[in-house]
């Protein structure tokens, strides 16, 4: 495929890149180009295709269509090692290096200096010292990597990747586990490498960092290219709109529901509830029949809030109340006992048990609450399963079919049925409509409204802003691991949510460490 000839030849150029997995088009004719000496941010929500794009570039996946050119030459890396030899190095958030080996051993594993077949460790250690000095890192390279902070490990990983590849460096969420100071150190390293002429791909969901470090940015959504811009020419609201998929020209007049009458005591209340490293302490109360929507970008603290509330990662500060009485949520068991339900985002790994039947999956949570000494009679299980299959319109030939054989939307409904069977007072739904087809999508929304009319309190996390607007009485906006805004009634519009997610201060630092 011919390239546009204007401008300098890009270092790395992918054109019309496509990748299909069974059931999903992970990448659809995506173009991406990287210049020498630039930091190019790659942005998108979960399932946008960021990681698929990276994996196609680094040979972890073989592309189905399109072309990748490095310095003008078409390349076909078969695996990450192959890509490394070609000049494309990758540093992931985790599992880059071996914590049990020394820093020097990690840097030179596989290409140690040798004489007569024996590794010259003294020479290797000296070379390692020199290599790290280029990064202003003066540490004892003979000590094991595990003894150093994540930031230092990250720089050692970068040093190894650059040493082995030297043309393109891909950083996948490199700052996710770093604190502010460590991020500064990492950014200094990135700038230095940029000056050396490397092309750097920077993936992060921290928008502040993207604005600080990147020259250009590319946004993907649902496997498609949304746009590639100069970072300086984009503002935060525009960027969030690109990521969440709203067209600025499209005026949405719709607003949320009027707030529920708050004269009575809230059914569930959390005061100064939080967990260090997960989510800043927050206050939250839910009334009978109220739906609270939760919006925010990936990694902003939405799921973390849900996990803290449900006791999956128990809170280390604050109190919880139910009907005015204090309750202790120290585990998911305690949460279930308090009549909470939680439908997690990743149903494959956190929820559905594919080998068990529809009936067994539905009765699981109720049985867990009753305790194993009081088994539910099989007649009742059967009746319950059939009832939910009918009520939620679960498309399955019968209740004994393994859930793994159902479609995504139907699996989601089975999970929902599992919690509904326990008749919870409070149900948390994390991205209940992700990855399911349009028809099932509408049904889930209808169900949320039904449940709320029946008096259940719901907390719904979603990236689909239009959807939040439809069913929420209130919307909480989460940013940088803290609850930053609450919108009520008329205030709930997609525009207002986007503004709150983007944040008003242009240079909002990560000041959540208190």
């Amino acid at each position, binding site marked *: 495929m011919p390239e546009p000839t204007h401008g300098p030849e890009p270092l790395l150029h992918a054109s019309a890149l496509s990748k299909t997995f069974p059931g999903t088009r992970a990448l659809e004719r995506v173009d991406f180009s990287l210049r020498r000496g630039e930091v190019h941010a790659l942005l998108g929500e979960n399932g946008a295709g960021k990681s698929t794009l990276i994996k196609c570039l680094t040979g972890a996946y073989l592309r189905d269509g399109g072309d990748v050119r490095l310095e003008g030459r078409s390349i076909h890396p078969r695996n990450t090692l192959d890509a*490394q030899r070609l000049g494309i190095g990758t540093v992931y958030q985790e599992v880059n290096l*071996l914590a049990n080996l020394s820093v020097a051993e990690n840097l030179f*594993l596989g290409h140690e200096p040798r004489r007569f077949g*024996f*590794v010259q460790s003294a020479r290797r250690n000296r070379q390692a010292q020199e290599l790290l000095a280029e990064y202003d890192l003066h540490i004892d390279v003979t*000590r094991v990597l*595990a003894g150093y902070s994540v*930031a230092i490990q990250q720089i050692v990983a970068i040093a190894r990747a650059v040493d082995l590849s030297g043309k393109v460096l891909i950083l996948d969420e490199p700052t996710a586990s770093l604190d502010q100071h*460590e991020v500064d150190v990492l950014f200094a390293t990135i700038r230095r490498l940029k000056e050396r002429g490397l092309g750097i791909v920077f993936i992060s969901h921290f928008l502040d960092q993207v604005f600080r470090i990147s020259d250009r940015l590319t946004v993907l959504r649902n496997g498609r290219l949304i746009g590639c811009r100069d970072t300086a020419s984009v503002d935060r609201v525009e960027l969030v709109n690109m990521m969440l998929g709203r067209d600025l020209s499209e005026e949405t007049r719709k607003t949320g529901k009027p707030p529920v009458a708050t004269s009575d005591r809230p059914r569930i209340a959390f005061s100064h509830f939080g967990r260090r490293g997960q989510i800043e302490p927050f206050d939250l109360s839910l009334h009978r029949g109220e739906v609270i929507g939760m919006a925010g970008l990936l990694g902003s603290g939405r799921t973390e809030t849900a996990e803290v509330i449900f006791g999956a990662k128990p809170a280390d500060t604050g109190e919880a109340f139910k009907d005015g009485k204090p309750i202790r949520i120290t585990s998911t068991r305690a949460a279930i006992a308090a009549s909470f339900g939680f439908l997690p985002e990743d149903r494959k790994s956190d929820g559905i048990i594919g080998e068990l039947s529809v009936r067994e999956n539905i009765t699981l949570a109720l049985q867990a609450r009753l305790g194993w000494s009081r088994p539910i009679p099989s007649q009742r299980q059967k009746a319950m399963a059939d009832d939910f299959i009918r009520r939620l319109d679960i498309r399955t030939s019968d209740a004994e079919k393994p859930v793994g054989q159902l479609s995504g939307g139907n699996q989601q409904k089975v999970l929902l049925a599992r919690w509904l069977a326990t008749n919870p007072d409070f149900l948390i739904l994390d991205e209940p409509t992700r990855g399911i087809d349009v028809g099932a999508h509408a049904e889930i929304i209808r169900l949320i409204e039904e449940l709320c009319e029946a008096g259940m309190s719901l907390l719904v996390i979603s990236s689909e802003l239009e959807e939040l607007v439809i069913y929420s009485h209130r919307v909480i906006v989460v940013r940088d691991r803290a609850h930053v805004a609450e919108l009520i009634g008329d205030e709930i519009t997609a525009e207002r949510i986007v503004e709150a997610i983007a944040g008003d201060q242009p240079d909002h630092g990560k000041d959540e460490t208190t």
Partner: protein
Amino acid sequence: MNERLLPLLATIAIFIAAYAVCYWQYPMILSTRVIGNLLTDNAFIGIAAVGMTFVILSGGIDLSVGSVIAFSGVFIAVLLRDTGMPVFAVFAMLLAITTLFGAAMGATVHYLEMPPFIVTLAGMFLARGMAYVLSIDSVPIDNEVMSSLQRLRWVVPGGGRLTFIGILMLVVFVAGMVIAHRTRFGLNVYALGGGTHTARLMGVPVARTTIAVYALSGFLAGLSGIVFAIYTSAGYSLATVGVELDAIAAVVIGGTLLSGGSGFVGGTLVGILIMGLIQTYIVFDGTLSSWWTKIAIGVLLLVFIALQRALVWLGDRRRGAGHASG
């Protein structure tokens, strides 16, 4: 202070302390005579423990060692009794068999993605079974070369006898140290122990290294079998039951992490000497049952596992604290 050395230093400290206690009660224990016997008596288990160290460093385990040693003894005894093959040809044949046997287990572990525990457990039954097939009875070895190898020794000042097999064990240990710390293969073994997935991402030839590790363990188990045959002048299919567990104990007491990736071949030698010393002390005492050896080893093992846990825990905590304050 390099934290990697801590378990090794702990082992050495325990060895010196134990020796001091023994010396205080029985000064004779420091004589070259006792030390020479310590090496000779533990030669076969020491050689097997070197192989075990590599396997454990790679994150695996080899339960077949004791059976392979017994098989080797019977194989040598039967072949020398029934054929006119020269001794060294028998040795070469045996080592080829046990190395291939180990390699086959390694290949099974890698390609069938089976847990090493199960694969080598099967290997353990297989090797023991093969020994029974060759002979059920104890087969005496009546061979000139074998007995001269047994008699081969150097008398050192103080009347101590350094036997051929004792020296062979020391040579194997030195070779093991060089391989572990001075070759790419050795570093790859440590890398595997740190995490197969990451090691593969970093370019470690996982298949080749896994197979080579078990092949090396098989080779050394065969060599250990030769030494055991020289030492006992017999081959018996019921011999050396549970020696693999003694070898594992020596490796762990020697400061190697049972989960792999951290430890020293030299530490295993100290582990072997500690276990030998306990046995010697009990012999010197004369009134204690020899089962006290097992009890002492059990206690030591527990101490070392606790120590390793504590070190890991301390490391985590220090890193956690460093991270929070950074």
